[in-house]
């Protein structure tokens, strides 16, 4: 069953076209990796799926469970089960993590027509998930991402994903800036999420290293706003050996 279908997606920012016709279908139970050089449009794709405002969609469509995703506000998408792990998680001083997550969880429950979560149950849920990302209790009363190291911010993204329990997760360079120990924790979290056959994920990464820990079902190479190569996980190793150069030199289809 297709969770997300991206059809001929074109997006631009300030008049510059970044995505130039993306086609990609992700089915339940699948993990797709998207790789590519800097500036190829990987992060733009992740942002567009989550509904970031700066980008203008000029052509194409995205269906999420068969519904028009691009017509939804960002918070509506989140309530429908789309989660973006940010490349640069945002700091919100003075707002602590548990209050933030509780507001988010209840917004999502309200959207589903459910009651607000019981505070006791909520705390139990937080504690359980915190353990998985190796965070201690102090973390709950700290302001969102404020004063967090790069590694802590990325772990927090994974923690939020586990608490909000989305259907479809997009991880935007969640491995960047992580040392090997933090990388393993993040990968464990993602692999836990993948166990559920009803869920799916897109993993955007710059480095093949991550894919040793999160083994994808499919690998796509994004160059200059288009997917130029798709394959199994072997493709990642090939990229590691040869770099992106061998793909880029292939003649691009004429623009005219």
């Amino acid at each position: 069953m297709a969770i997300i279908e991206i059809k001929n997606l074109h997006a631009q920012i300030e008049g510059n076209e970044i995505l130039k016709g993306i086609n990609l279908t992700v089915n339940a139970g699948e993990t797709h990796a998207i790789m590519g050089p800097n500036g190829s449009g990987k992060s733009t794709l992740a942002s567009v799926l989550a509904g970031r405002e700066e980008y203008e969609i000029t052509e194409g469509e995205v269906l999420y469970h068969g519904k028009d995703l691009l017509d939804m506000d960002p918070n509506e998408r989140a309530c429908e089960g789309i989660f973006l792990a940010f490349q640069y998680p945002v700091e919100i001083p003075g707002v602590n993590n548990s209050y933030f997550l509780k507001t988010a969880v209840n917004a999502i429950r309200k959207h589903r027509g459910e009651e607000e979560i019981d505070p006791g149950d909520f705390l139990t849920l937080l504690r359980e998930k915190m353990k998985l990302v190796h965070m201690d209790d102090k973390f709950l009363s700290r302001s969102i991402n404020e004063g967090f190291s790069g590694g802590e911010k990325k772990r927090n993204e994974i923690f939020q994903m586990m608490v909000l329990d989305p259907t479809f997760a997009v991880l935007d360079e969640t491995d960047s800036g992580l040392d090997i120990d933090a990388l393993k924790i993040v990968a464990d979290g993602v692999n836990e999420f993948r166990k559920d056959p009803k869920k799916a994920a897109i993993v955007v990464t710059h480095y093949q290293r991550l894919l040793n820990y999160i083994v994808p079902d499919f690998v796509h190479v994004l160059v200059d706003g288009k997917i130029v190569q798709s394959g199994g996980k072997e493709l990642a190793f090939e990229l590691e050996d040869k770099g992106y150069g061998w793909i880029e030199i292939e003649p691009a289809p004429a623009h005219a």
Partner: protein
Amino acid sequence: MNQQIEPVTGRDLFRQHFEEVEDRFSSNGQSWFMNTRKAAFARFTELGIPTRKDEAWKHTSLNPFNEVEFRPSDVSDVDSKALLEGIVFHNWKAHRVVFQDGQYSEGNSAINNLPKGLTIVSLKEAFSTHREVIEEHLASYAGEDENEAFVALNTALHEDGLLVMVEKGVVVEDPIHLIYLTTSHAHPSSTHPRTLVIAEEGSQLTLIERYAGEEGSVYFTNAVSEIVLGENAHFDHYRLQDESPQSFHIGTVQIEQGRNSRYRTHAISIGSRIGRNGIAAHLDGEGIECVMNGLFLTQDDQHIDNHTRVIHAQPHCYSHEVFKGILDDHSSGAFTGRIIVKEGAQKTDAIQSSKNLLLSDDATISPDPQLEIFADDVKCTHGATIGQLDTDAIFYLRARGIDEQSARGLLTFAFANEIIEQIKIEPLRDYLEAIIARRYRKGAL
């Protein structure tokens, strides 16, 4: 006029040193590097030894340094085993590299079991074995800042040093313990140690860089380290300056950081009569993290001057800098920290603080935090404090039965501990704790 023979010092002295170096290095495997040395020495001659009239040296007078006639360090055959005994950490796994009086000391080093992907080679040897690396990187980064004259002098005069290279994706488990040791000489000696670290994409490395010397010896160490971090590389750096109290130490560290890389340093200065500690990081890629923790302890008439510079050249970078000074007796110190956020470096998150504890009425400190911001969506904070031990806290401890000396020691230790507790190398932490206990608790523990 003067009946005594005037000692040759300062610029003239180093000209003599350079002529001697020129003779030696023109004929061996380094002749191809001679033009770089010459250009560097010309630059040094042009700049001269800084004076307090130079803005970047306004807190530090080099007059005592200018009075000493240093000689280039001899290849000493002093048995330094006993000296090293107090410096190396026991029961601790590390790749140890020792330089004695500026020269690589094979006997004292232990680099037999290097993991795959890690190269450690003395710089002198690297001139033959890794010429391309040296050509590309050595003297390519450092010197764009306030220490320029001394960096140029090092480039011109350096005899030896270390090249460390970590290949792409390699995680080096055991730290490298690099020791530059100076022994006693009949005359004041000088060395110019040079270190070059190249960590490729996704690699991980820990380096402890030590500077130590025999108690009572007068010498000059002019050290320069250049560190190049590739994308997503992680580098933990510990720099411990624990020179003899009669020495002069000028240290410069230049870090070039690539996208998503992380650099953490603990820069600790304890020794030297006059010490200068320059650290500059160039954050030239998105998603970079740079953490600088500094601690300096001064006593008697010591003077330690710290200069840091963090250049945010790209968006989404994070730098966090905390420098703490503990100053006793007649000692003095300075901290000049500069954060430069270039145009377009949006979402910069830069924190800088200078906290100083004066243990006596005669100690002085000049903190000078500076921010230069050319972007409009950034978070920058800076702060400076100067204070003495909290008399209420001392009284509180005394009311609980702790004598005044111990109470002061305890509070001083607590002040330093904010930095020390972040050190991940246990024996180094222990070593520093012992020094602080010795200095400030004065035996009463």
